């Protein structure tokens, strides 16, 4: 046990650097996913026929295949088409696209939970469709989505570990380096497991706080949440 603590404390500077990369991947991936997820959800519900199929295709393809394979397609596959990306941008784009598909589904269930009635009421006072989506539907959906959406940052944080497989210097890669150096793979991987767990616990606490703060007084609707690795 004390050996393990020695390993842990000796490797702290490395783990810290890895943590920063992991957090970078998580936050940028989440941001891209957010920016993709909302329009994908809106188009899937309100779009014209062809646009709708486009949104469905994006969402279902990225939810129906492993994030790891998506990452490999982008990092190893795209160069075949002349698009070569560095490791970190490739990881960020892959994670963003993946997260966007999952976020789109969270937004979609929130928008659908709000229902046609609110749209009708908005149209009845003369709002256009776009205005109604922007002023009435989305503000409610954004609040409603929070409890279910709160799973996504944690889920994405865990997914970022796959970046290790294209040698992005994240936490997991640092674990491998420490494992090689110390000949103690169990100790090294256990150490980053603990760090991931701490990050997840902190992130969960923050999201729960936001979730509590953002409730609309007197208005309760719950939508479903599911694991989305």
């Amino acid at each position, binding site marked *: 046990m004390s050996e393990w603590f020695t390993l842990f404390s000796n490797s702290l500077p490395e783990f810290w650097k890895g943590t920063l990369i992991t957090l970078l991947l998580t936050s940028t991936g989440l941001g891209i996913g957010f920016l993709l997820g909302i329009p994908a959800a809106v188009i899937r519900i309100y779009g014209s026929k062809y646009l709708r199929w486009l949104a469905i295709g994006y969402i279902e393809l990225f939810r129906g295949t492993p994030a790891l394979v998506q990452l490999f397609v982008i990092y190893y596959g795209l160069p075949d088409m002349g698009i070569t990306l560095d490791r970190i941008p490739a990881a960020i784009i892959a994670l963003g696209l993946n997260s966007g598909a999952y976020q789109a589904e969270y937004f979609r269930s929130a928008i659908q939970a*709000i229902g046609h*009635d*609110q749209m*009708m*009421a*908005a*149209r*009845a*006072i*003369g*709002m*256009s469709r776009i*205005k109604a989506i922007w*002023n*009435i539907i989305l*503000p*409610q959906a954004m*609040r409603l989505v929070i409890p279910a959406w709160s799973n996504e940052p944690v889920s994405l944080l865990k997914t970022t570990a796959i970046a290790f497989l294209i040698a992005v210097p994240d936490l997991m890669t640092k674990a491998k380096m420490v494992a090689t150096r110390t000949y103690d793979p169990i100790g090294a991987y256990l150490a980053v497991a603990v760090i991931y767990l701490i990050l997840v616990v902190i992130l969960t606490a923050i999201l729960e706080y936001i979730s509590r703060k953002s409730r*609309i*007084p*007197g*208005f*309760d609707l719950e939508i479903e949440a599911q694991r989305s690795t």
Partner: protein
Amino acid sequence: MDKYILEIQNISKRYGGNVILKDISLNVREGDTVVIIGPSGTGKSTLLRCINLLTRIDTGKILLDGKDITTKNVSEDEVRQHVGMVFQNFLLFNHLTALDNVMIGLTKVRKMPANQAKEKAMQELRRVGLADRASHYPGQLSGGQQQRVAIARALAMDPRVMLFDEPTSALDPELIGEVLEVMRKLAEEGMTMLCVTHEMGFAREVADRIIFMEHGVIVEEGPPAELFYRPKFERTREFLWKITELYGKHKDEEKPGDTST
């Protein structure tokens, strides 16, 4: 005074194989309060929704202030600003306070500056007696209060006509009165109103004209005194009987169909 504000000319509407509205014609004068009664599922709500263009008619015409609003080149959003609609289940915007619910049409649709819109919205809330609830969210208001806010929201757009689609049928009995009171006041102020309702007391006291609809057609229409006490058709008489038993509001001597009064 003889000018019609709303002219409905031979409109029809069908969904799939079902005919919902069959060749309906109806003219409404400025300041009129028209109450539409009839069994449920007979197209009353659809008629209102057609006037607000939430439902598109198949044939016929609807004129608002002499202008055809059912042709393709008329902007729906423009028309709806002039036709206020109050729904059975209120449909307030859940994420907005009472004040913001009333304001949002002014700021987002009419592009009115915020302070001016706020003033106007407060004025409408006062009109429905809810100035003190301005900062409450819909979830914090009773059903009756929500419906009054919904009325204020529609009024804020300065509509030419107000449409009420069973505004009290989702309310607990003790909350119905406050909503009817607001509507009665509106009628007195000279607002042009079309109400679908089962509140016969309200219909009798407030309406200038009652319309009895069944199976997508207007069976009979006339002033309350005539339609309630001297209905021409057996179907009208039957309906009034049933509704009286259900609501039990008439006194004995006011038995519908009784011609002795």
